[in-house]
């Protein structure tokens, strides 16, 4: 059975139900039931019109639930058996769903969960596994999220910035459990880019494709991290890079620069270098300047210090670094790197060990500990 097809139909099926006047939470439950039913039935009996099948089954589920509720309350069912004809479903439905599921009233974790279920068509169990929480916890998170957005009108334009942030969060979660969240984020962003012509949507899609292209080269078979400069660039996915670059160029031509386009431009410059030594660091520094102007983020300034260290030498990088707050995440790691390039192995080793203590995840901690160990071994020679 084609699970990708099934999942890609989710938002438009949900859109049809919501257009029929069903409240979002009930419609979403009905669609989820229909998806589960499809997984059960389709392999043996594939429908000729998959979307029509899903709409019909979801609609029946909704009626059953509504009737059961009505019976329980000993009231007359007020729902007609035959649905009123709905306006032809449009791309707009899909777009409104993205806005609703990433509504600014939701916390990031709730928006992520709701987007993956209602737009992505993942089951609660799959989402729970991907985020390593119990299924009951994830079910609660989703139903609370649905309650939060229950009063939101479905016909207002939403906030694209929160939608993009949610998709970015999903992508960054990467891969855990049996759901590939990075691939899922790309699929959802691609679907969004098809629904709306927006340079930052394109920028985010390009950014994801360019980073995804390096995925297999980023880790060794034992799970340890390979820094960008040491990656085997022949293992980068050239098709993904080509697609990302093309999308980015079209977006940049619109002349409405945003942070995702700028980040994608930096990723594209890395992708462009056949060898690490041929990286155009001068241009990368310029893009970091743009990015700092757009976001004013200290993390961007930290990355800029690294780029400057490559473009103008480690001393320049260290000078830029000195202007930043030492409490920034990864400050010690950047300082260690620049000091090593500057030839101060002792300081670099000490800073790498310090950076390992502050590492936010095990892979980074192991990587930084290895760097400290490598330099300490050098010093013993």
């Amino acid at each position, binding site marked *: 059975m084609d699970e990708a097809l099934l999942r890609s139909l989710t938002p438009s099926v949900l859109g049809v139900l919501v257009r029929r006047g069903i409240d979002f939470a009930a419609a979403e439950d009905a669609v989820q039931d229909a998806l589960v039913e499809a997984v059960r039935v389709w392999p043996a009996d594939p429908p000729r019109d998959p979307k029509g099948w899903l709409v019909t089954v979801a609609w029946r589920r909704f009626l059953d639930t509504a009737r059961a509720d009505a019976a329980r309350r000993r009231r007359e069912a007020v729902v007609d058996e035959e649905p009123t004809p709905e306006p032809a479903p449009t791309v707009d439905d899909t777009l409104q769903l993205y806005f609703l599921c990433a509504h600014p009233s939701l916390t990031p974790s709730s928006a992520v969960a709701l987007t993956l279920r209602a737009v992505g068509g993942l089951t609660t169990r799959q989402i729970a596994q991907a985020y390593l929480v119990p299924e009951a916890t994830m079910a609660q998170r989703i139903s609370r999220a649905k309650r939060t957005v229950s009063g939101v009108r479905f016909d207002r334009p939403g906030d694209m910035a929160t939608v993009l942030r949610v998709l970015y969060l999903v992508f960054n979660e990467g891969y855990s459990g049996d759901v590939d969240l990075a691939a899922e984020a790309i699929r959802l962003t691609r679907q969004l880019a098809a629904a709306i012509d927006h340079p930052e949507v394109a920028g985010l899609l390009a950014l994801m494709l360019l980073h995804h292209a390096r995925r297999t080269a980023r880790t060794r078979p*034992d*799970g*340890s991290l390979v820094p960008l400069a040491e990656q085997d660039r022949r293992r980068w996915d050239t098709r993904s890079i080509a697609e990302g670059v093309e999308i980015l160029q079209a977006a940049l031509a619109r002349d409405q620069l945003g942070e995702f386009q700028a980040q994608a431009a930096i990723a594209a410059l890395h992708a462009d270098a056949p060898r690490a030594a041929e990286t155009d660091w001068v241009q990368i520094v310029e893009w970091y300047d743009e990015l700092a102007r757009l976001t004013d983020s200290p993390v961007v300034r930290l990355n800029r210090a690294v780029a400057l260290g490559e473009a103008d030498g480690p001393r320049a990088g260290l000078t830029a670094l000195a202007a930043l707050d030492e409490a920034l995440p990864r400050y010690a790691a950047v300082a260690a790197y620049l000091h090593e390039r500057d030839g101060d192995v002792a300081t670099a*080793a000490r800073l*790498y*060990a310090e950076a*390992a*203590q*502050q*590492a*936010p995840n*095990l892979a980074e*901690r*192991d990587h930084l*500990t*290895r760097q*400290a*160990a*490598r330099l*300490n*071994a050098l010093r013993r020679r």
Partner: protein
Amino acid sequence: MAKYLLLKHYRGAPAAVNDVPMSQWTPEEISAHVQYMRDFAARLEGTGEFVDGQALAPEGTFVRYDGAGRPPVTDGPFAETKDLIAGWMVIDVDSYERAVELAGELSAAPGAGGKPIHEWLELRPFLSEPPTITE
């Protein structure tokens, strides 16, 4: 089946036999150690005895309630805290003896010079649900 918590300490446990900080090992020794830990967890998943394993950041904060309408009080991190937990593994095994056996294997993970660390791990039984049959 009974669940046990294997606790690894940054500080607070008696000193390991092979007590060299990881940043002083060679990169190959670190790789061997990481591989040993992975293999150990994978083997326990294979035997159906693995429940969970997590690592903790070295620094934490103490927090307590400070009365209605006030924000919680925070204190720390304390550089000199005696007991500092580094991480845990939860196993579900048939006997205490099996839990001790596995803790012993985990403590044999290779460290500096490729020799076992002989690290002290703390083994703590979970308090379980009351049994259905009580007489």
